[in-house]
């Protein structure tokens, strides 16, 4: 099976600091992948490169098999890469449906001449997508600032779904939420996964990641140091890999990524029941 998203040799520098160092990663359709690592490991930078906020200094991005350049956020959105940041990037002073349609507002013609906002359409469509995801928000006309953390998260997710996200990236989705709301968001993620939409999650809440992600990618100091199938590892091992008390699988970027392809092979063995042998230059 072909990966939906593949990044190869991605490097991003800021002045003298190398935030992401020759990073490789694949995401397959329907997966939930957890991107883990300590602060400063480069996770946020990597997803900002994928979502177009930053441009990589080196490396390539492949989407649906084709090499793609992602130069700005709009670009990423057009391809179908939707990102939900830690601060949600919602405009507090606008209401729910305005936020869902932010930047892509639906217009209608006034007196046949001037294009104005089509509030009714946006309201109705937003209601539809919220219902589809079984999210409870009493009034879509209220300003976002009156909503709880979980509701805002839900609005942000609905926004991505409405715009036909092909890949959803989430940065610390459960960080500021209460227990019940955390569960709701995690269920939402599972729903997305069942609809074949891959999700890439960054989170420090290992427990949450373990409950939704099927595969884990661990970064340290800008490099990928390990990959594990969730079922085949423990939180202790992951913590060890993150902080460095357990050595990673990749000591040097140029060594064989055999272990990596091993992980992929076994992953798809479990999925399709057959023993696929990945091609050598796919690594």
């Amino acid at each position, binding site marked *: 099976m072909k990966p939906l998203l593949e990044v190869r040799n991605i490097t991003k520098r800021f002045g003298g600091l190398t935030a992401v160092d020759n990073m490789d990663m694949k995401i397959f359709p329907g997966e939930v992948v957890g991107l883990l690592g300590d602060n400063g490991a480069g996770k946020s930078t990597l997803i900002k490169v994928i979502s177009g906020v930053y441009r990589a200094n080196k490396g390539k991005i492949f989407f649906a098999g084709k090499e793609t350049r992602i130069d700005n*956020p709009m670009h990423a959105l057009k391809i179908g890469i939707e990102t939900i940041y830690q601060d*949600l*990037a919602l*405009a*507090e*002073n*606008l209401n729910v449906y305005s936020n869902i349609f932010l930047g892509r507002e639906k217009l209608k013609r006034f007196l046949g001449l*001037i294009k*104005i*906002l089509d509030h009714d359409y946006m309201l109705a469509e937003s209601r539809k997508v919220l219902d589809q995801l079984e999210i409870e928000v009493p009034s879509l006309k209220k300003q976002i600032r009156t909503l709880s953390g979980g509701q805002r998260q839900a609005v942000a997710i609905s926004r991505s779904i409405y715009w036909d996200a092909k890949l959803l990236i989430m940065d610390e989705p459960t960080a500021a939420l209460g227990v019940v709301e955390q569960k709701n968001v995690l269920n939402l993620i599972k729903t997305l996964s069942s609809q074949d939409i891959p999700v890439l999650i960054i989170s420090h809440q290992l427990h949450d990641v373990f409950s939704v992600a099927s595969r884990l990618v661990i970064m340290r100091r800008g490099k990928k140091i390990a990959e594990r199938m969730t079922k085949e590892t423990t939180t202790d091992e992951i913590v060890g890999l993150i902080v460095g008390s357990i050595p990673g699988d990749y000591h040097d970027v140029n060594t064989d990524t055999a272990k990596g392809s091993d992980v992929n092979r076994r992953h798809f063995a479990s999925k399709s029941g057959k023993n696929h042998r990945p091609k050598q230059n796919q690594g």
Partner: protein
Amino acid sequence: MMDKADFREILVILVKRWILIFLAIELVFFAVFGTNYLSLRNLQNILLTSTVVLLLATGQTFVIITGGIDLSVGFMVGFSGVICAKVMVSLQAAGISQSVAVSSGIAVALILGLLPGLINGLLVARLRVPPFIATFGMYGIAYGFAEIISNNVPIHNLPTLVSSIGHGYLIYWLPEKAFTFFKIPENLTRLELQNLVPIVPNVTVIAFIFVAIFAFILAKTRFGQHTYAIGGSVDAAERAGINVKRHLIKVYMISSFFASLAGVCYVLMFITGRAPAGSARLLDAVVAVVIGGASLYGGTGSIGGTIIGVLIIGVLQIGLVNLGVPTYNLYIAVGCILILAVLVDQFLPKLVHGKD
């Protein structure tokens, strides 16, 4: 229990519209205590004196909603006024017909008036200069250039057409006799001239048209929506794909356009081009926008609110004159209303949510 909840609801609705109620109270107060306050002439007087502030405040509304501020409009009025007057005078001296001279003066002033806005926008959006500083810099620069162009002396001797537009009205009505547009009816006796009722100054019509257009843009179009979005969260706007830099530049150009328009109206009303014109109106404009519901942190505000804010100040100003009260009390009053406005806006959400 039902009554309490209802009462609360009514209270909330009232407080939300407090500026309208305040304006109404003001009008009633002056109608009772003043002389002929609600006469057509006096009301039109209010509109006329408020024109410059209204235009400045409209442009400023856009800027304040994005979380910025435009101090340069204080001297932009003089800047564009001086340019307008100078062009008119020069063309007239060159023998060109009045209508061409006047329209050229206006056109040149409006077009050149976009330039400071462009610079403001570039400074704020591309060079990340804080709006306060960028526009203050422009404020000084505009004043300097205005004085240079006018040689430090007010410009007079404008074409007579200016005065007929500036002091003219849309409609002239002689009860039961005549009804004309733009021109005073011909061949009137002195008695008839005295009874002539002028309705709606030309200058007000001009201002109103532009204010209405941009009120529509702010409230109904995508451009307006994005303006609010940027004020709410620049990050959210950027990540939603909005080109924030370009939008901000446009917003500052709108502000300086309205300031130039105010300058043109000043020239029409006072038949002179002066560099320091309108500098006192800058803070009135900001005050009006804030009274109208905007927050200096951005994200809220509306042209409707701004208009009411302008009227509150205008009604007060003319009202005090009408009562014979010294004008310094105006400053005190406006200062107090301003602070009151902010306090109300702050305690309003608590009032509303106390209900929930």
